[in-house]
């Protein structure tokens, strides 16, 4: 049980780090990939919480198709995100 708790805490920290990168980075490509990584770690967290159906759905849709759709849209837009501070 302890190793599962440690894995869950590490996954939570990884999700936080990736989400921070997704929100704060200047390049959109890095943000999109970081959002996909958040989805991936969340899927593994669902597996640790013993919910394989939810993990499969999150991995296929959140981490796979959602990232691909973001990249197609980014290809159409082709703009760099300016700093609005």
């Amino acid at each position, binding site marked *: 049980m302890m190793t599962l708790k440690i894995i869950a805490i590490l996954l939570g920290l990884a999700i936080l780090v990736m989400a921070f990168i997704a929100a704060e980075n200047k390049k959109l490509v890095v943000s999109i990939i970081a959002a996909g990584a958040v989805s991936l770690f969340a899927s593994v967290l669902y597996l640790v919480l013993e919910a*394989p*159906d939810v993990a*499969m*759905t999150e991995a*296929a*849709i959140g981490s*796979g*198709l959602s990232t*691909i*759709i973001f990249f*197609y*849209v980014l290809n*159409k*837009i082709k703009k760099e995100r300016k700093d*609005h*501070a």
Partner: protein
Amino acid sequence: MLKKVFVLAVLAVFALLLFRSFGWTDAGTELNEVATRYAEDGPQEVGAANLVTAVIVTYRGLDTLGEVTILFLTASIIGFFLATGRKGEHVPPTVRNTSEILQTASRVITPVIFLIGIYVFINGHLTPGGGFQGGAIVASGLVLMLLANPGRKVSHSLISAVESISGISFVLLGILGIILASGFLDNSILGYGRFGTLFSAGAIPVIYIFVGLKVGSELSGIVSNLQQTTKEDI
């Protein structure tokens, strides 16, 4: 600068609320009444080895109908706004050839991905998975095909035909449940079979096959619409 401070303040308020709510609920040691009824009587009543599938398709079948409707709405809105040109007119994309490794590997891997997706939604009542997961895997196989050959023609009429027929069949199976058995999407219209085999759980495999085909063709249609749209700006 002020915007960042404001965002951090809102996040801090949310964090405080969530932290306070840690003390309200302690981890339950037993399920509540509805969940106990589902867990104890579910396998015998429904005949499916996967309890999650039993809840999604039979106990909460009406919510599944709502989810299928939302997916259909999304796909048709995207297909409406991203017109891909008139029928028969195919605009070839002006991209360079993809690498040979990608093309060759996609020829090997894409059938395997389709096979895994179809396996997941056919065996939805036995192993974790189901219609939505299997459909998403099938759609990602199509994404690999489109990534390897961007100029490949994807027949939109075939995708629309599969999606419409699967959706109508899903609703017809639900209405058959009302006519022949005790409620919408009741799965006792077919025999239960032996518990744990492929032909068990009544109509659940048939329902999930239609749901899997519908979700797979919908997501494939969305991706191919985004890739082949002739609009210059979205």
